């Protein structure tokens, strides 16, 4: 009887220990997830479309995931957007028009087109006009596709610093 009681007590303490450990791990993972989705996260971006602001070979940017949720996004900010033509691709572009703005651009045909950005949409364009697939091709994108605002470059070390809006 004494032995069985001891055994029971041991089991209980082991179970409690396991539960505590699980909660600690879960807490850590959740904190990581929340920082990554709601506060900031590092992202690698590459490609020619944002030359000369960002390099072709790849930069690591810190993305601010908070301010676009409060509509704190202005002209000239560099944003991370889910591509409208492929939801798994992420594009890095600069905001050049908010809803209600009048935008003029050079279409492929060579004519200058002028339009008003519709409600709830933004007009995004790459800095490198000649090698960028952006709103000039697929039109204004819904605000809901914006994933965050790039505010700081952390790699390469030579060009570390804040990305100002133009």
């Amino acid at each position, binding site marked *: 009887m004494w032995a069985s009681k001891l055994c029971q007590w041991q089991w209980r303490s082991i179970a409690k220990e396991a539960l505590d450990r699980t909660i600690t791990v879960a807490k850590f993972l959740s904190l990581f997830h929340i920082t990554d989705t709601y506060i900031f996260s590092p992202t690698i971006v590459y490609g020619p479309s944002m030359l000369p602001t960002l390099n072709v070979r790849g930069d690591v940017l810190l993305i601010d995931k908070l301010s676009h949720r409060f509509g704190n996004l202005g002209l000239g900010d560099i944003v991370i957007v889910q591509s409208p033509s492929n*939801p798994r691709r992420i594009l890095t572009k600069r905001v050049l028009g908010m809803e209600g703005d009048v935008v003029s651009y050079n279409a492929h045909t060579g004519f200058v087109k002028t339009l008003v950005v519709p409600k*709830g949409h933004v007009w995004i364009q790459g800095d490198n006009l000649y090698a960028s697939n952006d709103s000039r091709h697929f039109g204004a994108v819904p605000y809901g*596709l914006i994933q965050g605002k790039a505010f700081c470059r952390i790699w390469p070390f030579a060009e570390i610093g804040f990305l100002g809006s133009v």
Partner: protein
Amino acid sequence: MASPKYWWGVAKKCFTVGLISLTVSDRCGSITPISGQSMSPTFNPEHSTFKDYVLVEKFCLMKCNFSHGDVIVFSSPSNHKEKHVKRIIAMPGDWLSTSDSYDTVKIPQGHCWVEGDNPASSADSRSYGPIPLGLAQGRVTHILWPPQRIGKVEKVVPEHRLSMTTRQTTS
């Protein structure tokens, strides 16, 4: 009388529960009330007095694997703060005949055509065109409340409106 230490412990527990539940609702699934008549009779049929509560699954977001007939939650293209619940009618590459006119629309890459089950009172792709799949926030899988209608949400595919040649190649 409870000491400050006790309240500190309670606050820490609340914080932990909040963190974990927010993560679960982002990654796995969440429970949401449905308001409005646009998905009647699937949700909120005419005679119900309470709002329906549904389970929204989020696993499908990682791979973007949606299919015809799924009911999805997405943020409205004209106002990102509004969430809409509609049914996917057509996927990228499909040819779809719109119900009110006799036009045929091709759905562009990465987009889908969404419509409410109640065409009389629903603002959907018929007014704003195909929406990017990136706007999707989750898929509605089960009704949880009221008790007499607990169960899975059925897929409904309007085959007659999709042109058959593209159906065979995409499925």
